[in-house]
């Protein structure tokens, strides 16, 4: 289990993350919920090693991880990027598989199978020959998710994985992410649409103003929300819980 302790990030006088702590359990789909500007992307960038944190630590089973150790465990998939815009989706997937080591000890058949599986799961077949720079927002999001799923790290941090997807695609992608979690890969998803989060996540971390307002399953968070409201709320859906706790 990966444990984040007191992670703090400041931009000058502005505190983007204030002593954020949470746990990431193996094989779970963990949702990071918070409004715009709550620090979700900053938290992911700090966890992924893209941004330097000003304080705090990440540990695994009590052992504080070095930068290299963290890199071996966590892959951060940013939102709103269009890597290698001139290259085709097919090439980008081959590159990720080759660069990140699928071809290392296996035959290229294995890597082709892995790529084919991801392509099928994310319905990328019609887009394989399109340059990434020409894809629509939703298509690019699916291509990016495929890139993330092809990386070898056991924990995938995906920033807004459903952004730009329609309802049908959101459900299909949610199913794909769940199936990968079922196969043992941990998913930590930053989601600002609470209904999407409720559909796919096992547990939630609620973030508001750079602080963690709650962590747990929907039931655990509901009980906490009840305590905060000093009585049972109108309903136990995630939206109400989120509003009660933030």
């Amino acid at each position: 289990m990966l444990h984040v302790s007191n992670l703090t990030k400041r931009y000058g006088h502005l505190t983007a993350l204030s002593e954020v702590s949470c746990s990431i359990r193996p094989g779970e789909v963990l949702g990071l919920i918070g409004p715009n500007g709550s620090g979700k992307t900053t938290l992911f960038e700090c966890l992924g090693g893209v941004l330097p944190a000003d304080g705090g630590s990440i540990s695994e089973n009590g052992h504080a991880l070095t930068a290299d150790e963290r890199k071996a465990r966590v892959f951060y998939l940013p939102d709103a990027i269009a890597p290698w815009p001139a290259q085709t989706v097919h090439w980008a997937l081959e590159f990720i598989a080759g660069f990140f080591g699928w071809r290392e000890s296996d035959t290229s058949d294995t890597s082709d199978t892995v790529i084919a599986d991801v392509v099928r799961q994310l319905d990328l077949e019609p887009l394989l020959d399109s340059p990434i720079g020409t894809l629509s927002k939703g298509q690019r999001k699916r291509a990016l998710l495929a890139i993330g799923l092809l990386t070898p790290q056991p924990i995938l941090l995906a920033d807004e994985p459903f952004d730009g997807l329609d309802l049908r695609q959101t459900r299909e992608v949610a199913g794909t992410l769940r199936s990968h979690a079922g196969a043992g890969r941990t998913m930590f998803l930053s989601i600002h649409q609470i209904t999407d989060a409720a559909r796919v996540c096992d547990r939630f971390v609620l973030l508001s103003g750079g602080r963690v307002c709650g962590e747990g399953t929907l039931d655990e968070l509901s009980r906490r929300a009840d305590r905060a409201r000093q009585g049972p709320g109108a309903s136990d859906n995630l939206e109400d819980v989120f509003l009660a706790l933030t």
Partner: protein
Amino acid sequence: MSSWLSHRRALTWLVRKEWRELVASRSWWILLVAMGPLVGVSFISAVRTYAEASGFNGTAVGQGVGEAFSPLIGVWAPTFSACELAAAFLLPFVGIRLVSGDRQSGALKIELQHPGMQSPAVARVSAKALVLLAGWLIASAAPALAVVLWRTYGGSIYPPELVTVVFGHLLNAGLTIALAAATASLTEHPSTAAILTLSVTVGTWIVNFIAAVNGGVWERAAGYTPTAMVAEFQHGLIRLDVVLVALALVVAGLGLSAIWMRLGVPVRRRVNESIALGALTAAVMFACTFFTPSWDTSENRGNSFAEADEEMLKTIRTPLRIEAHLAPEDPRRVDLEHRALSKLRRVMPKTQVHYVSSTTIGLFEQTAPHYGEIWYELGGRKTMSRVTTAEGVLESIYELAGVTPPAEDEASLFRGHPLAVPPKGAATVFYGIWPAVIVATALFVRRRQA
């Protein structure tokens, strides 16, 4: 072992990726297209002038007037100067595009998360530098075509001097690539990187200008600017100190790029590392300036005295001191430096040269006592001369050393290779065929890649 293999495989994939990115970039194809006309205009003009000096259309009687008929000076230096232009004004944009593109697109954030790679930023910068250098070599096919054309005209080629010119321009391209990589990593936006790169280039020109006006330390520093470096290679001179300083700068530029390319590292740490790298580079460069070996690869021995004179000078072990009362901008000082002292330093590295002047141009010092005098001191004996030619300088040194000047060997004098042939077909090749082939290749390759 498996970690090393993994690292090597990842690096191979990076190189493949950088190559595809280079091929996909319009800036590289524009560089390639521009190289043809740039080289063409220089080559055609050089061959015409060479032909006229050789007696083409009865313009002169071209029978052996030495340096005038050296292909190195007459053809290769001007032809390859197109590479200098391209390296200063086109190559930086190709480099910046390749380095900044990943940051702009977000690819950097993905690639730098490779779990098994030691120093992924260094690997990425190395892959980019390697591919850019390959891209430059392909662009060098244009001057290579000029060499082929020259050969078909019946022109003489002296491989050592040609290789020296090519090496000089390759080193210059390396410097440009390193500079572009450093600025692209240091800045957030490619346009800022472009401005910064051009500022550094203009800065080196300013150093050259100040050196010409003030002399002294500036003159010494100006000797290591890309312009001065390329000029020496274009004259067939390879100086070990210049090569080492250039290599140190290339490594420093790429190192700086790697420092600032990394993600997740606090700015303060990067600043400290950059300062340390700068200090280390300065120390290495200073140490490099003490390496005096140099090689004159020119067929006409334009950077050397006659062999007999060099043999004689080598026998003089006593340190020589020269005091020249000439202002930095005085043409006689330029003559003295280029015709005699630069050659003398190669044979007698311990020679101390001291310039004395009160003004920069010397025009108003002409009537001052001692102005124009060149004093030679060897083993306590002194002599004065006003002659700035190689022969005059050698005469003074031989007189002080008490040795008899060696007899002039007429047979060893370079007589040149006159060639009174017009640049036939060159315009078609460089202005027509070259751009057409590049555009066709670009369309084919990009379509195939897509």
